[in-house]
């Protein structure tokens, strides 16, 4: 590459400096970025097109008789019950992530501070669970959840805590071990019991790791298809991925108009979430990757 062309001063300041023929790269990357993001706009464009034209001419603009305003949206919302699905997805994601953060961080602190055979074994099991693919447990897990009555949005939260515990405990233990013991000892000597020590001293220090874990788990739970499909009673409760897959239905032809409209509605919350917490997401990904 042309790092040679950069002067010494530019190298010291890395990416903030401008390079000589930088505008060429800017131009190339602008074109690439537009191509890269175009699939989303193609879907958006098709969501306003009459359904029989989508499959035939996915790249032409809706115009004249192929433009149907919000008809696809109306039909899609009716067929999928999208708003209910959105509500379920939101409830499940928020509660699961909150519970995972609270419970696994407490568990991880205990594992890190109480060094016994039992805690070591539990930690090893958590590491082990991270490499087990979902297909290994999907059938038995759905039966166990069924027997215990965990087939509602509230019940599935317990399942997510259980299946998501491995990664979270692993990440929290790694971070807790880097906190100096003296801080906690001082709190204990001042008369705090472990619960007070944890919530007043340890938990605030854990905040950056909490954000990382929350981002990673939220991305997983929100987009997860198979686990809720098998665990939830889907005649009653659908999540967004289930609602979209439901449009495909059996062997009949797919209503691509409704499909495009629902894809747009599924992407919008993600884009908003991304715009709002972009910094945290990027940091979370890096921190998560370094630990994982």
């Amino acid at each position, binding site marked *: 590459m042309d790092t040679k062309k950069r002067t010494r001063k530019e190298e010291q300041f890395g990416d903030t400096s401008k390079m000589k023929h930088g505008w060429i790269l800017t131009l190339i990357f602008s074109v690439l*970025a537009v191509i890269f993001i175009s699939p989303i706009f193609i879907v958006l464009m098709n969501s306003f097109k009459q359904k029989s034209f989508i499959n035939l001419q996915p790249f032409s603009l809706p115009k004249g008789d192929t433009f149907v305003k919000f008809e696809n949206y109306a039909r899609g919302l009716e067929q999928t019950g999208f708003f209910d699905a959105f509500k379920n997805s939101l409830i499940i994601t928020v509660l699961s992530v909150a519970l995972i953060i609270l419970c696994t961080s407490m568990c991880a602190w205990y594992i890190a501070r109480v060094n016994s055979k039992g805690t070591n074994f539990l930690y090893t099991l958590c590491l082990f669970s991270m490499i087990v693919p979902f297909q290994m447990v999907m059938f038995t897990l759905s039966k166990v959840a069924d027997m215990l009555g965990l087939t509602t949005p509230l019940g599935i939260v317990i399942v997510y805590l259980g299946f998501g515990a491995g990664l979270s405990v692993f990440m929290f233990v790694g971070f807790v071990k880097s906190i100096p013991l003296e801080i906690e000892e001082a709190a204990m000597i001042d008369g705090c019991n472990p619960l007070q020590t944890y919530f007043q001293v340890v938990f605030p220090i854990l905040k950056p790791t909490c954000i990382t874990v929350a981002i990673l788990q939220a991305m997983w739970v929100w987009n997860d298809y198979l686990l809720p499909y098998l665990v939830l009673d889907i005649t009653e409760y659908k999540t967004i991925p289930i609602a979209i897959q439901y449009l495909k239905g059996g062997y009949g032809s797919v209503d691509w108009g409704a499909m495009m409209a629902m894809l747009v509605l599924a*992407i919008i919350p993600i884009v908003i979430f*991304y715009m709002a917490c972009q910094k945290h997401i990027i940091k979370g990904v890096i921190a998560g990757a370094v630990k994982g």
Partner: protein
Amino acid sequence: MNHSIKKYFPIFVLPTLAAFVIGFIVPFILGIYLSFCKFTTVTDAKFVGIENFVKIFGDKTFLHSIWFTALFTVVSVVTINLLAFIVAMLLTKGFKGTNIFRTVFFMPNLIGGIVLGYIWQIILNGVLAHFGVTLQYSATYGFWGLIILMNWQQIGYMMIIYIAGIQNIPTELIEAAKIDGATSWQTLKNVTLPMVMPSITICTFLTLTNGFKLFDQNLALTGGGPSHQSEMMALNIFDTFYTKIGYEGVGQAKAVIFFILVALIAFVQLRATRSKEVQQ
């Protein structure tokens, strides 16, 4: 201190432990046991020894899915990491707009597999329509369709990790190499690559397991068609469980084999690349 914390076991550990037992340990052990049984639900299981495992070897769709998955994983690991690394190298050069480009390239990663599958189904079918075929015409189209889809989804994620790795390299090292007369290629090969080895380890590991365990995208893009030809292992296992009545035991046995393969890959891969890392 140790002792006083121990008394709080029920508050600190029990909730997670209970959920972990329900959500992982019991299903896992039961899963191992059921792979040696004939059953339709958990309660009517009859022990049949290794019969299920023997049946797998007569199942051509499963053997094909192993091959398909392996090939897909190799191609996707190479393409995603190569492209992500090149993009990361260029985006750390400091030209105008790099932050916006990073934002754009990362975005598809947040979209779920099912949604991704349908987005690409409409686009790829639109392109293939010019040649009078569809994704369902041949598994080759399904294969490359999945490769394009996974690249689109994961390049941004891996790029972020590579950028973090590249920015961690002390500038003195690059400078020293240049003063010693190293060419750009030599600097890349002898300084940059060894220094970002931890990132390469992580990204290879992530893309490898993501590729191997792929399910949602496979289901939504081709559904395994035509006739199981573009089916990956995870989807094949799902199909065996839920579309073939009386084959639950075989499905579970396939799942056990799938688990062993995933575990093996994770282990070997971590071993192999950890040994190449440079101490900083």
